[in-house]
């Protein structure tokens, strides 16, 4: 009976949404606002990746909120899982996971710097190629995850993570405030736009995405480290 009710509800929701969407034909026109963005982004901002231009410049305040949500999630996990934690250092490995095999360890050692390099490349070139701060930060965190699961004794210094996070956040907000001083509004793009398709272009967009990349990488690494170090506290 209950399942029947749930299926009825699901079918109702599905049919209603599909009914609304049949008014929006697939693969046809764009909205007016995106035509504006597509026009402005290469001509005024000199940014070739329009998605980056929208995320960091046109909707920069929204991105600041997004970064704040990510920070709150990281801080929330820390406080939800809080326990009087014994210090986890090189001499006092607390992870119970078994040591990975030699092949994984050697491979991880080789791959780790390359993964970090790829992540850095992606967030530095966020305004030229697909990708950006969030994606690059996520890739950097996967590099740290590889090290965390292959070496039991590998540990992330939480004070270092906190410092990187705070400095990156301060850079973002500071650029916004500088925009207020020089341009009139918060997060105004006050630096010269430069040349389309060159690395130094787009004014503050590149700097903000580098800060976001560091922040996201540090936060995700912190989250992974917290979640991996929690299980052995059980016993």
């Amino acid at each position, binding site marked *: 009976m209950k399942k029947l009710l749930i299926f009825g509800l699901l079918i109702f929701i599905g049919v209603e949404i599909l009914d609304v969407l049949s008014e929006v034909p697939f*693969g046809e026109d764009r909205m007016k606002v995106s035509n504006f963005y597509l026009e402005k982004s290469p001509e005024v901002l000199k940014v070739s990746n329009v998605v980056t231009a929208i995320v960091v410049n046109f909707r920069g305040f929204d991105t600041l909120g*997004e970064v704040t949500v990510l920070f709150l*999630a990281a801080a929330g996990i820390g406080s*939800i*899982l809080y326990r009087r934690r014994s210090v986890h250092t090189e001499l006092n490995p607390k992870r119970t996971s078994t040591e990975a095999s030699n092949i994984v360890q050697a491979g991880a050692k080789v791959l780790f710097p390359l993964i970090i390099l790829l992540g850095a490349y992606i967030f530095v070139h966020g305004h030229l190629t697909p990708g950006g701060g*969030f994606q690059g930060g996520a890739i950097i965190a996967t590099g740290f995850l590889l090290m965390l699961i292959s070496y039991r004794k590998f540990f992330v210094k939480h004070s270092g993570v906190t410092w990187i996070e705070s400095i990156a956040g301060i850079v973002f907000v500071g650029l916004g405030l500088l925009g207020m001083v020089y341009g009139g509004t918060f997060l105004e793009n006050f630096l010269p736009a430069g040349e389309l*398709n060159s690395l130094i272009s787009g004014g503050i967009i590149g700097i903000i995405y580098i800060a976001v990349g560091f922040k996201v990488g540090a936060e995700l690494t912190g*989250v992974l480290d917290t979640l991996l170090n929690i299980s052995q506290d059980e016993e």
Partner: protein
Amino acid sequence: MQDFLTYGIYGTAIFLMLLGVYAVLVKRNLIKIVIGLSILDSGLHLLFVAIGFISGGTAPIFSPMAIESANKMVDPVPQALVLTAIVIGFGVTAVALALVIRLYRHHNTINIDEIKNLKW
């Protein structure tokens, strides 16, 4: 053909969303509920990106070869929104999993039928 594409792609996205809602409503295992929320997210992202697509469109990135190709580009606004939504989805999943770990510590089970505190 156009109808098939419209209903096929939107239908897939909506099917994923409904699958997520079904998991959240029916499953009793908290981890599976979190997975359901995650699937719901994926369906929503697919729907957004599908709405922004235009036939024969390219990625909204200007390359040195084709500066003037703006009229063939897909809608960048839903893509930017999905970028935001993915990050928020990550935050939701991470906090939900942390709460599950906390509940497990208290009750030694992740079956919500056995967690009596949830009933009133």
